[in-house]
């Protein structure tokens, strides 16, 4: 029961945020929540199932374009476009998994990196449709959901919060379910789980596809809430970002992705006063985390103090 109370309390606190945050910061928080959904998906693959992917930008971009292009080309409304985005992320993830999951470890990392790179280049190649590196602004008719305009502050925040809350609670339910246990078994000892009757390939494929649904939802939400779609979201940077969030917050913890996204955002915001060298902060954070705190913040807290933390 404790985990559910903790998660619902966090969502409740976030829901009150527009009351005590400036509109600027509330919009930033909406952005963080959307990126946290992306990181939650990454966490399902990396943190729970042990699949270290370097290609999740492809899945984010898949969701983004699967939502943005129909809105742009065929005048879809935000609802159907969002669903198309989720489906796009899941579909590409399943296709990626069918090929990449024949490999493991370092090869898996390189293969996912290469497929994502090919996807990015493909977006550039078809720049007349995708807008290439410059991207395009999503038409305002495509950003209306149930009569409210997602480009205005309050609906945007509420939409981001809803997606975040559903994603968070779904991931909590998932990792506490028997399938969640099976995912962790892949991470911990694949050979043993095979001897218990599990087919590692199908389990990992399912986990990666779920991860893709999250990434797709995040990409679609980003496109519809912030009104921009571009190939830059398919670059390697956007594969590294969720990894960084998850490592910082704690791989294999349900709240880690959000905490990592929030802290990384705050860190860069705070450092902007001192330096414009954002990349340096990202790089240093990666090195320091992997060296000194590979379990991340919540992973360490769980190990030392709160064993019940999911």
């Amino acid at each position: 029961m404790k985990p559910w109370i903790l998660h619902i309390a966090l969502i409740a606190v976030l829901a009150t945020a527009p009351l005590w945050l400036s509109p600027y910061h509330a919009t930033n928080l909406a952005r963080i929540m959307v990126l946290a959904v992306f990181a939650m998906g990454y966490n399902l693959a990396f943190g729970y199932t042990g699949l270290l992917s370097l290609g999740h930008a492809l899945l984010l971009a898949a969701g983004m374009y699967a939502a943005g292009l129909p809105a742009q080309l065929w005048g879809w409304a935000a609802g159907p476009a969002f669903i198309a985005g989720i489906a796009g992320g899941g579909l590409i993830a399943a296709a990626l998994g069918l090929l990449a999951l024949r490999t493991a470890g370092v090869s898996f990392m390189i293969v996912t990196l290469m497929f994502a790179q090919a996807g990015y280049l493909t977006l550039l190649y078809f720049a007349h449709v995708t807008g290439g590196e410059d991207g395009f602004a999503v038409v305002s008719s495509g950003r209306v959901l149930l009569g409210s305009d997602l480009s205005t502050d309050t609906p945007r925040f509420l939409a981001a919060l809803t997606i975040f809350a559903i994603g968070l609670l779904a991931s909590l339910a998932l990792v506490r379910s028997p399938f969640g246990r099976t995912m962790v078994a892949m991470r911990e000892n694949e050979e043993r789980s095979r001897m218990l009757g599990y087919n590692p390939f199908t389990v990992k494929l399912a986990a990666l596809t779920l991860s893709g649904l999250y990434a797709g939802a995040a990409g679609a939400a980003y496109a519809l809430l912030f009104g921009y779609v571009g190939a830059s979201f398919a670059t390697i940077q956007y594969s590294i970002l969720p990894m960084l969030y998850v490592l910082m917050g704690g791989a294999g913890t349900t709240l880690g992705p959000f905490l990592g996204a929030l802290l990384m955002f705050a860190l860069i915001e705070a450092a902007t006063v001192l330096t414009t060298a954002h990349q340096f902060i990202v790089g240093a954070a990666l090195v320091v985390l992997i060296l000194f705190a590979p379990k991340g913040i919540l992973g360490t807290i769980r190990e030392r103090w709160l064993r019940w933390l999911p």
Partner: protein
Amino acid sequence: MAPLIQTRGLTRHFGGLKAVDGVDFTLTQGEIHGLIGPNGAGKTTFVSLLSGRLPAQSGTISLNGEDITRLPAHHRARKGIAYTFQITSVFPRLSVFDNVALAVQSQGTRDLTARTRAALVRVGLDGLEEQEAQTLSYGHQRLLEVAMGLALHPRLLILDEPTQGLAASEIEGFKSLVRSLVPETTVLLIEHNMEVVMDLATRITVLTFGRVLATGTPAEIRANPHVQEAYLGA
């Protein structure tokens, strides 16, 4: 009685080493069958072929008359062949409960908690549910392995040196546990502790250099001059 497992000409070489070399072997439903032989005789390789951890190079394996030679390991596990590892291979960072629950839930998720507890009670690990598996003593980790095997409700349970590292007092409990499994479950037991094998097994097969040297009751094996020469006398 119909044979549960039958192998014909089962072979697996590693380079020049003939680990398993044309083994014909029959396992009868409901027996406790001991598999003995000197180190390097091919015992672990042989049961790895049965469980599907290793693919056979030639020969056939059948389970209740069905050819399973080409079946991947996870399908064989679902068909009722459970393998407990010689070198304990539990999920080290998961709790004792989760370890056994993984085995239980591969059979279906109904009454998951109750069935998991039952398997733990059966090997005497109840009360340690929440402990992380890697913090268990070696003997308890071996029992956890067995509990995971049992929880699969297998038709064949392969135990690879289960008493290694157990205290004398624990061995007695283990023997009665194994006896309580038959005849619903057939047990194939690799064991170095001769007292345990002679006491438990209804039949024994002796492997040397990847081949079957003899098969028979414990008394027959004890009396067999070839076995004495090759193994017991050494």
